């Protein structure tokens, strides 16, 4: 009888021990999980700032006041609903959103590998982290930020709400992030561009018959001080081009001309505009000037042709509209950075034509073919500096698509939504 009791006792004790072993699993004291859509592994250009958010939950039974261990180049954002303060107090099972702003210009060259680490706060008088009680995200969710060279911004003309958005361009993927409106008060803006020095931004207001000029914040890329350029004589301007030294501004006018204005190098304002006419012009809807400043390419929407004109100072003449093919109500034209290819956005067929630019001194177009990219609406394509990504606006979807661009033959492929948001009837796209 006694032996039976002992056996039972041993069995019960064994089960209890087994149970306690199972229950005594490890779990983070303070769980730190990225919020939905938050990317924690970044290749961050040195001139960009990115935001990463984590949900922090106190999983212990004790109310704790918590502090993030400082990370060089990372600033905690403490405003907003549900956002963690600094420090922040969480009772058992309570959560808040830890929002971090990562500044590429302040990150050490070795990058950020790890964290954020959240610790109990030392005391109310000493809000520094107490290293004796700390947690961090699981290994796949810790910060992994590498810094790369300065990245470009993409500027998008929002023709339907008369603004300009600018976004960060991920140099590795080409995707757009952190899009925000940077200029307002434009009037049907369509063609946009920068002077060669990158110090001034110009928007052609096809409805307002004006050209807007803005200064460029060289640190952030934001547009500031946007004003009317002062240029006159425009007739539904819709394109932007420059002479190589930036002293002459060109724009195509739907009312069958190309304007050439002098640029004030200090203010960016335009003056002394002259209109160049050509019998080949037929509702010019956009134009581009090659980097040598010797040829202008003007799309003729009504004739479905492209005029290739000689350029000399403010004179645009001797236009040839016989080269190239596969155009259908061409709306926009963009030259690749190496000036070997021209991309024509067809409003009629809602696609993109790529042509070779002959390097025989004529500048004419040849071997034109339809390539990828679903262009819808007005405006033109944009390219990154390397010429490896092309950005195609789509007014119907209020979206911008990003495509891979082949440097050899200029074809576009693998076009996908750029992930940029907040656009309204995007027309012109330019990267700077």
């Amino acid at each position, binding site marked *: 009888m006694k032996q039976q009791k002992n056996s039972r006792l041993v069995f019960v004790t064994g089960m209890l021990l087994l149970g*306690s072993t199972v*229950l*005594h*699993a*490890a*779990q*983070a*004291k303070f*769980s*730190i999980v990225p919020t939905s859509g938050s990317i924690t592994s970044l290749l961050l250009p040195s001139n960009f700032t990115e935001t990463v958010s984590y949900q922090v939950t106190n999983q*212990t*039974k*004790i109310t704790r006041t918590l502090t993030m261990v400082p990370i060089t180049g990372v600033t905690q954002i403490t405003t907003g609903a549900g956002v963690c303060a600094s420090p922040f107090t969480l009772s058992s099972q309570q959560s808040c959103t830890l929002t971090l702003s990562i500044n590429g210009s302040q990150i050490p060259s070795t990058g950020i590998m790890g964290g954020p*680490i959240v*610790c*109990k706060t030392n005391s109310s008088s000493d809000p520094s982290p*107490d*290293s*004796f*009680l*700390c*947690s*961090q*995200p*699981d*290994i796949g969710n810790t910060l992994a930020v590498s810094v790369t060279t300065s990245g470009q911004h993409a500027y998008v003309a929002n023709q339907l709400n008369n603004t300009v958005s600018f976004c960060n361009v991920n140099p590795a993927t080409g995707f757009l992030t952190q899009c925000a409106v940077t200029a307002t008060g434009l009037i049907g803006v369509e063609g946009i561009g920068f002077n060669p020095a990158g110090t001034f931004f110009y928007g052609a207001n096809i409805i307002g018959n004006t050209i807007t000029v803005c200064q460029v914040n060289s640190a952030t890329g934001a547009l500031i001080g946007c004003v009317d350029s002062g240029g006159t004589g425009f007739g539904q301007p819709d394109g932007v081009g420059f002479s190589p030294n930036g002293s002459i501004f060109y724009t195509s006018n739907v009312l069958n001309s190309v304007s050439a204005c002098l640029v004030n190098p200090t203010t960016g304002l335009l003056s002394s505009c002259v209109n160049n006419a050509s019998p080949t012009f037929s509702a010019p809807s956009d134009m581009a000037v090659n980097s040598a400043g010797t040829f202008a390419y003007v799309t003729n929407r009504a004739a479905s042709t492209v005029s290739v004109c000689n350029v000399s100072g403010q004179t645009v003449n001797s236009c040839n509209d016989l080269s190239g093919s596969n155009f259908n109500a061409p709306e926009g034209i963009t030259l690749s950075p190496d000036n070997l290819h021209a991309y024509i956005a067809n409003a009629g067929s809602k696609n993109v034509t790529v042509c070779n630019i002959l390097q025989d001194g004529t500048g004419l177009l040849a071997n034109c073919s339809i390539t990828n990219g679903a262009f819808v609406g007005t405006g033109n394509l944009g390219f990154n500096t390397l010429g490896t990504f092309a950005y195609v606006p789509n007014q119907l979807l209020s979206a911008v698509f990003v495509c891979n661009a082949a440097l050899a033959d200029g074809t576009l492929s693998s076009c996908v939504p750029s992930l940029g948001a907040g656009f309204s009837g995007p027309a012109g796209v330019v990267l700077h």
Partner: protein
Amino acid sequence: MFRMMSILFGAMLSSSVFAAAESEMSSGNHFFIGLSPGITWVTGNQAQTLNLQSDIAKTYTADNNTPYFPNAEIFIGWQKALAAHFIRQSLTSQLGLSVAVAGNAKLSGDIWEDGDPNFNNFSYNYKVTHTHVALKGRLIGKSSFILEPYVSGSIGVGFNRAYGFTSQPKISGEVAAPPFGSNTTTTFVYTLGVGLQKSLNENLQVAVGYEFADWGKTQLSRAAGQTQNQGLTLNHLYANQVQLSLFYIV
């Protein structure tokens, strides 16, 4: 066990005293030196909950299994053969000074954050090296058999160096607290042993035996930034040793 060994140790010391008193009955004192290498394992690691800060407590559980590690002892003194009539046994006593070293004892366990077993988030380990200097005696029973039994005992002062504390997170989402610091504790030490020996000739003896030792207190020092208490502390760390000894009698 302790009581029995204590009695034997007391008897041995007493016999040494008798031996000194009955020097005319002995065959004289002989200087000897003994070397005893061996293996050791320790017991006595205990779970403990420490308040490291005013509002942070952690429980450190204790693993029972510790790995074996080497020890060595040098024992020098005087040997005296004597006839202890009161137990009707011919005895030989050895009394002298021993210096012993052992290490590294590896102690380990788990760490429960907030003393809560649901947050069994870290494992820890640290090492202890032990050195002691002791007054040691050995009482050897003379017999007609090949092997002669002996008991031994010592009391002295020990030095326990606790060092190399590390803690490893069991999950990637946890961050280890700063480690406890190294610390050497001076402490009272005693040993009790039994074994068998054989005289190879007039000068050489070999022995094999078991020795129990109370190494006394071990303690790690505070971690950087710790404001309360010290590091992990054991008031008694017990060592079990199997020794092979070689004695040279001059």
